[in-house]
Structure formats: structure tokens, C-alpha cells
């Protein structure tokens, strides 16, 4: 249901089809197939291709969305907040400074409970200017309540965007989502992306029917007016409850997606090579994690019982899943792109806090690698782990 009653007329493929496209295009196709109603965009490298493709779809008449051209990223988020408040399904894509420029309104979208979904191309922050991959841009927004997914390849970007709408628009969630991919490594690298038929996507994703609130001229309300301290506790705890509930909802949506389309990239976490014998777990994220799958194979060949956990969803954080996966291991090795300056890697901080509540607290090794898109090869990562383990001998 939309207030405008304008039925979105996006045209997807009638049959399932395989494309060879970039991560940016994968996101644009997902937006089209999700029948987005409002897109607002301001270009920034390396996410520009995505909104360029979306505007091409709109121009060609194959996507029924309203495309709002604005003067900055701050206004992008403002436009999406307004549109989402009227019950429209919304989309945009941005990166690095663009995302931080809209940071104030990312918080607004989250605290206003609006299921805006954006494709984020993770890029290193300036100074000095860089255009390559680093995940601090989105990870630094982790406390806002926004749901964050980190993808390892273009196929996962496509699938996760569709799933993100389903999760964000769930009546117990109503929170925005960021679906993140690494700059260039995914955003500009062509890879295989399988897309389902449009009617199957329609069946899966449904329409957005907000039950919590809607801006409607026929029934005027003031949304988020001045409120007194005694009202905050209940409303803020309601956000805590929703974001905690989102964990199970993400798992259910991923399972449903697998049943319908045969693809599963993990839910809150993705694992590789973990079994009962696993003693050494590497924790990583994004495209680095896909490379580290090869490191796990190398380490196993050398006789190490290694395995990999890829943090797929940073918020809500998969604490229980990590405790379960790590309950019998000896060492845990973090390889991540994003530090929290003054402490450790962002994923390490959260993971260590989760394991503090566990009976088993493995010895931890911290590695910040791949800053500004530096290549982290499988050999290099395997070598890091071997050196970690040698220090214990």
C-alpha cells in the first residue's frame, strides 16, 4: 500500500536469469526487482554506478520509481525519510564521506523506525583521499540501531538487498538497513549474479504495509514532536527489543530465501571449515573473508584445525552464535579492515565482549589488515595465523 496509490511498475525478468555484472549493478537490479517506489541520490565514488544504473532504469521506463535529484547526501536521507514516512519503499546508494554526511539522518531514520534500505560501498575515509575499501564508514554508525550486512560477493549483495527489505519491513522491526560491499573489489568487479523471476521476487518480498505510523493528509499526526524524559525509556527499549528480535527474523528470512531460491550465504554469521575438531577460528568480514576461506584450506593441509567465521550482520550482533561456535576452541584470530582508534578492531571488540560471557575464553590475536583496499591474499592471511600459533609453542 502506498499513500499515492501509484502502483510501482518495475519490470523484472519473467524467467530466472544469470547476469555478469558488478556489485553496484547487482544492487541496482535488486532495487528494481524489489519494486522501489522512491530513490534519492547524490553521486559519490565508488557507489555512483549503482544510482546511475537505477536512473537509467527509471529513464527507460522499466522501473516505476520516483527519482529525486538532491544537492547532497544529507538531503538524500531527508528525502528517503519523508518518502518512507508516507509508506513508500525507498532506496539509495552511497559511500564513505557521503554516508557520514548523512549520518545525522541515518540516526533519524533508525529512531523514527523507518525501513529505508541503502546499498553501501565501503570506502576508506580521508584524509588522505582514498577511494579503496575500508569499512569504518558504515561500522562507525553501528550504535544507531541501523541493521548492517557485510557481503562477500556480488551475488550476496543482490540476495541480501531483497532480504533486507523483508527484514526491515517486518512489523516487529521497522528499522533501516545498510547492505555493504567493498569498494572496487566488489563494486567494480564483474561476477556472476543469478536473479530469480520477478513474480517469485514479488511473492517473497510482498508490499510495505506500515502498521506503526504513516504520514497521511487525511489523518494528520505530528511525528516525533518534543517529548518529555519519562516517555523515552519505553520508546528506546522498544528499539532494543526490535533490534534483538531482528536476529531471529533475519535467520527466518534467510532460511525462507534458501527454500525459495536455493541460495544461502549464512544468516547472522557465515562459517567455513568449522567442525567438532576446530581449535583455531579466524573471524573476518566482507570480501576478505571469502579470500580467507582459501587460507583455511591451506592451514588444514598443514595440519592446523582451523575454521572461519564471517560476521555477516554486525548489528544486531550475533553474540549467542559466536559463543556456540567458539565454545571448544583454543585460539581466535581477528583479521579485519576497520579499527576503532584507541582500541582494537571493531569486530574484535564486539566478539570479545560476547565471549566474555562464555565459559571458554580462547586466546585472541588481533590483526588490522587490508586498510584502504590493500590486498589480503590467502597466503598472507594463512601466514599471519601460523605466526600467531608459533608464539604459543
Amino acid at each position, binding site marked *: 500500500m502506498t499513500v499515492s496509490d501509484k502502483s510501482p511498475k518495475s519490470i523484472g525478468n519473467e524467467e530466472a536469469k544469470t547476469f555478469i555484472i558488478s556489485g553496484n549493478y547487482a544492487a541496482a537490479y535488486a532495487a528494481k526487482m524489489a519494486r522501489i517506489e522512491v530513490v534519492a541520490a547524490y553521486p559519490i565514488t565508488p557507489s555512483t554506478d549503482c544510482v546511475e544504473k537505477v536512473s537509467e532504469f527509471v529513464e527507460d521506463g522499466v522501473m516505476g520509481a520516483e527519482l529525486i535529484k538532491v544537492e547532497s547526501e544529507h538531503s538524500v536521507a531527508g528525502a528517503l525519510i519523508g518518502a518512507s514516512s508516507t509508506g513508500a519503499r525507498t532506496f539509495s546508494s552511497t559511500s564513505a564521506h557521503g554516508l557520514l554526511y548523512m549520518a545525522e539522518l541515518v540516526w533519524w531514520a533508525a529512531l*523514527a*523506525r523507518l525501513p529505508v534500505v541503502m546499498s553501501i560501498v565501503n570506502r576508506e575515509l580521508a584524509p588522505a583521499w582514498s577511494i579503496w575499501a575500508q569499512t569504518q564508514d558504515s561500522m562507525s554508525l553501528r550504535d544507531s540501531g541501523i541493521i548492517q550486512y557485510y557481503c562477500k560477493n556480488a551475488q550476496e549483495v543482490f540476495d541480501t538487498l531483497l532480504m533486507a527489505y523483508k527484514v526491515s519491513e*517486518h*512489523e*516487529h*522491526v*521497522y528499522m533501516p538497513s545498510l547492505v555493504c560491499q567493498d569498494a572496487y573489489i566488489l563494486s567494480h568487479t564483474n561476477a556472476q549474479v543469478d536473479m530469480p523471476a520477478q513474480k517469485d521476487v514479488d511473492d517473497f518480498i510482498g508490499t510495505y504495509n506500515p*502498521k*506503526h*505510523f504513516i504520514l497521511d493528509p487525511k489523518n*494528520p*499526526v*505530528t*511525528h*516525533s*514532536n*518534543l*517529548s518529555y524524559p519519562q*516517555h523515552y525509556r*519505553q*520508546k528506546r527499549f*522498544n528499539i532494543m*527489543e*526490535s533490534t534483538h*528480535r531482528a536476529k*531471529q*527474523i533475519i535467520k*527466518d*528470512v534467510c532460511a*525462507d530465501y534458501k527454500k525459495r531460491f536455493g541460495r544461502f550465504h549464512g544468516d547472522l554469521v557465515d562459517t567455513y571449515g568449522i567442525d567438532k575438531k576446530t581449535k583455531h577460528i579466524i573471524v573476518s568480514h566482507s570480501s576478505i573473508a571469502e579470500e580467507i576461506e582459501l587460507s583455511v584450506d591451506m592451514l588444514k593441509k598443514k595440519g592446523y584445525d582451523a575454521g572461519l567465521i564471517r560476521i555477516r550482520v554486525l548489528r544486531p550482533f550475533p553474540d549467542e552464535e559466536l559463543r556456540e561456535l567458539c565454545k571448544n576452541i583454543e585460539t581466535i584470530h581477528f583479521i579485519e579492515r576497520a579499527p576503532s582508534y584507541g582500541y582494537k578492531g571493531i569486530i574484535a571488540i564486539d566478539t570479545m565482549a560476547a565471549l566474555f560471557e562464555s565459559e571458554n575464553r580462547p586466546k585472541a590475536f588481533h590483526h588490522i589488515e587490508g586498510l584502504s583496499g590493500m590486498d589480503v591474499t590467502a597466503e598472507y592471511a594463512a601466514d599471519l595465523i601460523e605466526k600467531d600459533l608459533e608464539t604459543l609453542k
Partner: protein
Amino acid sequence: MTKSNDDFKVETWNSKPTKGAAGKTGLWRTFRPIIDDDVCTRCEICALYCPEPCITLNPDDPSHEKGRMVIEYEYCKGCGICANECPKHCIEMVKETEFLVEEEEEDK
């Protein structure tokens, strides 16, 4: 799929217009608008501009053929916009302390 099989609901801040939604704003006032009824033409410009809005025309007042402008002091916050907009300059903003002296004298 997760069904809504419990009564959890997402809550947002939605308010509908109601009298005095922000409390008794009259308590904020340091200057009180006083209309000089003899000069006032009952043009209602002040009523149009009052942000609260707490000036209205009482059409039944016999003081003038159109009635009389009435200010609801419980909610008038003393912003002075009415006095500024009045084309006749017949609204005077008077310090609340002056009324305090009057009221104290009345009490004696």
C-alpha cells in the same frame, strides 16, 4: 516465518492536536499583551499571527459591532508577535512584574 504471535508492537511518537499539548505555556510569559479596545478595529491580524494560537474574536461582546478580541492568558507565552503585527499598534507588551504589584496590592 516469524508471525506476530505475541502482542509486541513497534512504538513511535505520534501526537494529535490537543489543547495545551506542550503544557500551560502562559507560565513562560514575562511580558503580557494588553489590547487597547478603543483603538482596536477587530481586524483579527493578531489572531492570524499568534503562534499558540490564543487570541480569538468573541463576536458576542457588546463593546463593538464585531465583538471583542480576547487573549487566553493561560496559554499566551508573551512572544509579542501580535503587538508587532498589529497595524494599529494598539497592543502593548506590559512587564508581568507590574501586574504582580497590582495583585499584591489587591491582596492587602
